[in-house]
């Protein structure tokens, strides 16, 4: 990092209390931002920050310094530097998310890893007879596919049953979600079963909706659900995260999606309980039994550099007006503004109202494109990438019998949505390019069937 960017010289000496807002004179400029993301491929509309995130040049630089420290003298770094560096990152995060104790915060590779940790524990309880066969795990039908597979691998395999709650989409209010969730809990408890775990997304991935997570957790408590795991892969840097207020037992969020970290790093919060938690990292090292934060801090020789740059990321976000809060608000507002622009241009709709969006918005695609399957949506996505240099994920909404669906201006059924993201490097022309691409496809009467022939 350049000398004028570094305040204390050594990122590990960083002040970890609430980040100070910068003076107006020191704010990052447009050209600074362009420079920070100069490594992004130019000439494409990169409007999918939600999938793989982004990392600014100054943080990549900080990462390289950590990598070099290890390579220079790895033993010394292992004995004298690594743990301290990881604790510094954990402390920043702990403060940011309002955890009671930094010991509640572990660093893992990604949300997928955290899901494996929670589900392995649940699986052991089934295997060891602590849970009865057929006791349930409740989750939303749109839970991330990896989480579903993890449930299959660890819970279904040992006789646990699952209840999937269908997320209404498009969705109009939190009440719609709360209502179906209550029904799901009823089902989970039917026939004397106990709901051992509820998995709730803070922000669903596809389709993307900001969930009323605090209310849902509260309902779980009221209804006697034993443990709640919030999969908040997209949350930190997207929406305010207060783990005490949310009240879940487990909460995970990726920092490489919306919090400018390099791939990959997630924090995994485990609420302190009086009894032994029995959560373990599946890659067992000599630290086994010393608590998850310590177990996760050494899972064999690895490159831990992406977990060490969190203090540097704080420096980066504090160059923006309002720090990370300011970034979140502007991302949300711009994403909604662009979403409305697209919906108007195409004669379609938003998948959820603005207050149920974050820096990502779902916008209906014109029905005339005839997206009729997941394969169609994948093909359309590739077509947009190859022919229009637009990177945006496409979601096929499979309507079930009896579901009415939403119609577009042409009175056709909207069967697909794009999920646009807005991050600090995005510009209006990115979304205009998407707008014009779809408009052109519609004008040329292209459907997904035609696309496959191209």
């Amino acid at each position, binding site marked *: 990092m350049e000398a004028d960017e570094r305040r204390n010289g050594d990122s590990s000496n960083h002040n970890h209390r609430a980040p100070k807002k910068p003076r107006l004179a020191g704010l990052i400029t447009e050209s600074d931002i362009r420079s920070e993301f100069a490594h992004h491929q130019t000439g494409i509309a990169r409007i999918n920050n939600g999938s793989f995130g982004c990392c600014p040049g100054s943080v990549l630089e900080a990462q390289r310094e950590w990598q070099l420290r290890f390579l220079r003298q790895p033993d010394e770094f292992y004995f004298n530097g690594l743990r301290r560096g990881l604790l510094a990152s954990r402390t920043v995060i702990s403060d940011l998310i309002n955890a009671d104790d930094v010991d509640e915060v572990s660093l893992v590779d990604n949300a*997928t890893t955290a899901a494996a940790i929670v589900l392995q524990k649940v699986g052991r309880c089934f295997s060891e007879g602590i849970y009865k066969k057929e006791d349930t795990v409740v989750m939303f039908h749109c839970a991330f596919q990896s989480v579903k597979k*993890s449930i299959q691998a660890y819970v279904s395999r040992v006789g646990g049953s699952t209840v999937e709650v269908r997320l209404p989409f498009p969705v109009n209010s939190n009440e719609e979600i709360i209502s179906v969730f209550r029904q799901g809990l009823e089902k989970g408890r039917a026939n004397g079963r106990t709901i051992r775990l509820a998995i709730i997304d803070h922000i669903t991935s596809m389709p993307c909706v900001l969930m009323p997570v605090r209310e849902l957790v509260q309902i779980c408590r009221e209804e006697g659900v034993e443990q709640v795991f919030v999969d908040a892969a997209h949350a930190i840097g997207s929406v305010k995260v207060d783990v005490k207020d949310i009240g879940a037992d487990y909460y995970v969020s990726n920092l490489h999606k919306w919090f400018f970290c390099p791939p990959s790093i997630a924090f995994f919060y485990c609420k302190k309980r009086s009894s032994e938690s029995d959560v373990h990292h599946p890659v067992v*090292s000599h630290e086994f039994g010393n608590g998850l934060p310590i177990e996760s801090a050494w899972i064999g020789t690895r490159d831990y550099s992406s977990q060490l740059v969190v203090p540097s990321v704080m420096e980066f976000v504090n160059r923006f007006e309002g720090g990370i809060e300011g970034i979140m608000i502007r991302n949300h507002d711009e994403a909604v503004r662009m979403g409305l622009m697209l919906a108007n241009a195409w004669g379609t709709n938003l998948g959820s109202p603005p207050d149920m969006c974050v820096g990502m918005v779902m916008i209906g695609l014109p029905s005339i494109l005839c997206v009729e399957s997941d394969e169609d949506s994948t093909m359309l996505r590739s077509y947009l990438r190859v022919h229009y240099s637009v990177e945006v994920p496409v979601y096929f909404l499979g309507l079930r019998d009896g579901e009415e669906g939403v119609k577009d201006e042409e009175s056709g059924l909207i069967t697909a949505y794009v999920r646009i993201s807005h991050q600090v490097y995005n510009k209006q022309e990115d979304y205009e390019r998407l707008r014009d691409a779809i408009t052109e496809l519609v004008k040329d009467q292209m459907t997904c069937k035609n696309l496959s022939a191209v």
Partner: protein
Amino acid sequence: MASSLSPPEEASYHHRHSKRYSSSSSSTNGVAVESVPDFVKRPKISLPNYISPSEIESEFSHHDPAFTRINNGSFGCCPSSILARQRDWQLRFLRQPDRFFFEQLKPKLSESRSVIKRLINAEHDEEVSIVDNATTAAAIVLQQTAWAFREGKYDKGDAVVMLHYAFGSVKKSVEAYVTRSGGHVIEVQLPFPVISADEIIDQFRIGLEAGKANGRRVRLALIDHVTSMPSVVIPIKELVKICRREGVDQVFVDAAHGIGCVDVDMKEIGADFYTSNLHKWFFAPPSVAFLYCRKSSSGARDLHHPVVSDAYGNGLAVESSWVGTRDYSAQLVVPSILEFVNRFEGGIDGIKKRNHESVVEMGQMLVKSWGTQFGCPPEMCASMIMVGLPVCFGVSSDSDVSKLRTFLRERFRIEIPTYFRPPADGEIDPITGYVRISFQVYNKPEDYHRLRDVINGLVRDGFRCTSLSG
């Protein structure tokens, strides 16, 4: 290269390493370098341009020059040309991650796996999975064992046999997965110092017998190819054969120190599962390892990566190639590493051979100077060897050697792992402390001379481990 070598060692060192020099160099430090014998026999073409000593120095110029780094065994090393290739891969992802994910990641990981498959003489590509490190591989194999116990495929109390010197993390993994699910663990005590491979084979047989006592089955034998501490090359091929004869269900070889260190031939060794780190002795950046799973092995189909993704159920190799968003760059540089090692004469085999010869030579120099001994015969070491410390240090505990290691690092900038060997009853003047020296291509004789002199200096000063504060 600057050198404070005494003439006899210098001559022998340069003689053996003369082939590393380009044919145009004639003498170094006043010692004549013998001409390369092969040159006479070859037709008149120029010798291939092998990497030169100054290029090697340049490749490892990021190593801290203030340190005497003789512990390649713990964390390995990575040349700067590979680091540069790694950065290229990282950048490709960062530039356009979606495109990279959809178009490049899978095929490029397959390329890495193919390279490894050829290197280790595996039969099928799908037998090779790439994981972060041997610790992860152990979790994968042991999780499979745990399922078998939990689901009644194995009887509670059936045995898992492992070496007493197994790596600490592996022991914990066995506790977490095997003991917890009802397996009975037997640790085979190995002698140290070791006189011959037969000692190990005998002890192992005894361990298997104990495993089969009371009508039990031995479900898994977990054997190191090269133990970590104390470091000894285990007669793996023989032990695997014995396991087969004695009806052991599965053999898992932990060869963290395998590829680039010892000969790694899956068909010859014949194990069910075999794992080795590439970042220790195969010049990969941290971190990348392979886990080989023989297709015909029972349980091969029930191996799963513990971090379950949407790739679950497609075979371990595919599951391991997607464990969520990660930096896969260390796994992608494997083909480039082959280019690097082939700049050395004899490629990786040449490197292995020279590392072995050099570590034995340096070890002998130390043993002679300190009046101690090796921990094992030279033929039972690869590129690391255990060298006894002077008895007068009075090493009497793990804490002593740990403090000694820190002392050597902080006071003398020497990085070397130390080992405490409890004395046997009745031993006179036992050697209770050992250092484990490593030799890798960036090492030089002066590294070991420095160690020699520092230790001798401490002896002269009447140093005792008890004087170290903790």
